């Protein structure tokens, strides 16, 4: 069985070569467990660093939730990616797309874990809560971009107006990632708030972003939470 260390080096150095070498219809079931393990371990280590901002139980909570944050959005967006590229005339087999997604997630997770110590160092300087959140988001973005690039590079050539499919894929991934991150919050606990594993479903990530921007400037209007959607409950006025 391909060792985890060998696979880790492969996803960092040349994930495209890894996908090309194992895109044969039979290697996916063998490679999926170690690649998922790399993703989970890398994301958990990054989560530990994020949780260190507050410490206590936040360490464990963030370490548990971060792998879900890295795994769930690609799984949700994978059918969209497949259909977008097919609509552009790029016939990508599901197996190859899955392998590319696994390699991309593992790559991002390992890079995020490598960024962890930087995050820990900056958090140890007692950053403001909003700065801490922005730093976490920036780190995930920095680690995520090489993963997304690897995924797109692993797709076959040809097709029409590939940039449209690429833009649609990026949008689908971004939306899935943003809402999943919102659902799994908090990764960083507010200074006055108790440490909790999950918060109730409230509003959505985009309305929260505008409220967060305002609150970072001291304007706390718009923080009256209201639950919505199938999973939320409308609170009595």
């Amino acid at each position, binding site marked *: 069985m391909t060792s985890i260390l060998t696979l880790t080096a492969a996803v960092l150095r040349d994930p495209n070569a890894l996908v090309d070498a194992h895109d044969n219809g039979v290697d996916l079931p063998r490679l999926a467990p170690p690649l998922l393990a790399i993703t989970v371990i890398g994301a958990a280590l990054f989560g530990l660093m994020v949780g260190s901002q507050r410490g206590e139980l936040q360490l464990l909570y963030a370490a548990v939730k971060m792998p879900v944050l890295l795994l769930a959005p690609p799984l949700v*967006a994978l059918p969209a990616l497949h259909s977008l590229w097919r*609509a552009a005339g790029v016939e990508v087999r599901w197996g190859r797309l899955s392998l590319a997604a696994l390699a991309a997630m593992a790559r991002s997770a390992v890079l995020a874990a490598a960024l962890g110590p930087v995050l820990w160092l900056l958090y140890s300087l007692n950053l403001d809560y909003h700065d801490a959140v922005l730093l976490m988001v920036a780190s995930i973005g920095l680690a995520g971009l090489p993963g997304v690039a690897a995924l797109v590079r692993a797709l076959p050539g040809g097709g*029409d*107006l590939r940039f449209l*499919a690429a833009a649609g894929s990026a949008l689908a991934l971004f939306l899935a990632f943003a*809402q999943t991150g919102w659902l799994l919050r908090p990764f960083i606990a507010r200074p006055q708030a108790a440490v909790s594993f999950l918060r109730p479903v409230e509003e959505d990530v985009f309305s929260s972003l505008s409220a967060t921007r305002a609150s970072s400037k001291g304007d706390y209007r718009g923080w009256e939470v209201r639950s919505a*959607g*199938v*999973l*939320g409950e409308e609170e009595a006025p």
Partner: protein
Amino acid sequence: MDITLASPAPRSETAPLRPLAVLRATGGWLLLAVVALAAEPTALAESAPLTLAAPAGALLLTVPALLVGHQFLNLRAAPSALLSALLRGYCGAGDVALGLTPLALLFSATSALGPLILMVTVGGAGLQALAVTLLRLARAEDAATAEPDLAAKGRMVVLGLAWAALTALIGLRLSFDLANSLF
């Protein structure tokens, strides 16, 4: 000499379109609407058919104009080739709608953004399909032309752009009805 066997070649654009592909595409639009509006069952009955009406209606209303214009301008591609390109565009958009249902489910299940996501996905899938179909129509005309004919190419470009503009406007008009039913 070594031979390494590869997987069977992918489908080409000229392979016949199966009725199942059209059914799947149609089902994709309806499923997207059902999933995106799961949190608003009262809007579902009215909005689901309107979700299908935007792409299907735009196509049905503009295909005759395209075919008539194509013949009127003495262009050379066979009408069947044009119809094939149009149907493939419709099927592609429907497949994109189907592929977007998990994302729509994530938002409808966890927020009030289901209707907005529905509008964004209908618009996005429709735009991509329109652009790709336009290219394929031009390619179908090129394939039917034995010798380069700049004038014919120019006529095809104008016809294609006019058709795309008309389809976009009709699609927008029908989407307006959908938005009215949702918001």
